[in-house]
């Protein structure tokens, strides 16, 4: 950082109206003495003017004028998951109870259990592989 930096940093405060009146006077005296500083201030004022004239339109094709709809959906979604998971758990518990307490022969129960567990394991491994593939795919950013 150069030795000129402190005066330049004060110049920033002057430009942004962050100085007390006596500090402003000191900067103005400094400005009267230095044409280089005057030129620098003029450039920063010109930048400020350009920034102040910027205004934005809504992005073309934006579906909603406000982000509220999307935010609201995100905030209320967990409640939907909680309700659905609670319902599924209640049904699974009920089905397991009915199955265990049914008078069916034990070989039949064992065979049905094997099928259900096997299907669940197959689903779990397929999902696991798919997730790992997505994470490590070097072409995932390529638009097809």
């Amino acid at each position, binding site marked *: 950082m150069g030795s000129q930096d402190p005066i330049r*940093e004060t110049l920033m405060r002057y430009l942004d109206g*962050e100085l007390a009146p006596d500090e402003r006077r000191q900067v103005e005296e400094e400005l009267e003495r230095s044409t280089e500083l005057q030129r620098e201030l003029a450039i920063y004022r010109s*930048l400020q003017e350009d920034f102040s004239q910027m205004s934005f339109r809504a992005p073309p094709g934006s579906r909603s004028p406000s*982000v509220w709809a999307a*935010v609201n959906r995100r905030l209320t979604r967990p409640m939907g998951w909680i309700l659905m998971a609670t319902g599924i758990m209640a049904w699974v518990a009920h089905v397991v109870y009915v199955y265990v307490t049914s008078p069916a022969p034990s070989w039949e129960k064992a065979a049905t259990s094997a099928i259900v567990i096997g299907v669940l394991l197959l689903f779990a491994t397929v999902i696991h592989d798919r997730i790992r593939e997505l994470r490590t795919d070097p072409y995932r950013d390529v638009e097809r």
Partner: protein
Amino acid sequence: MQPEVERELIRKCRGGDARFYEPLVRAYEPQGLRVAMGMMGNPEDARDALQEAFVKAFQALPRFDTKRSFGPWFFQILRNQCRDQLRSRAARFRVEVVDDGLLDLQGDEGPGSSRRKRERAEARRLLWKALERIPEDQREVLVLKELEDFRYQEIASILDIPEGTVASRLFHARRALRDALLEMGVVYP
């Protein structure tokens, strides 16, 4: 929005009722969108960042100190979100800004069009391109000051830096921007 109204809405939101969050979102959305546009450089990423920041702010409301104002706290979350997004593989600062002045310029070919107006519009277009060339921490301080005119104290709070550092960072940011513009052939009077 009145600070008491804001505090009351936050108190109700903390009870988990998202309906009371809507006035806060609508109040801070325009300013938030401009800040996000300045930091991300394009409307799509800006809207994504803003949306995610509002969701994170709602989830963090139980930890929010109600003695503070919601604005600077929210903009801190938004700034962190923009940074995270820029560092993720999906986004990078890319200039694709929809500036009213620039759009107006496209149809402004008539004999009455002012040369000065056209020059300033061209300067603004280059300004956006120059923003792309300066470091992220300098860009964000410029956006907060120049686009939103936050006070140094507010900028310090949003960026979580001492107030004295704001002036220093602004100086380096403006100088970097000026140098980038000069490199791009902009001539200053």
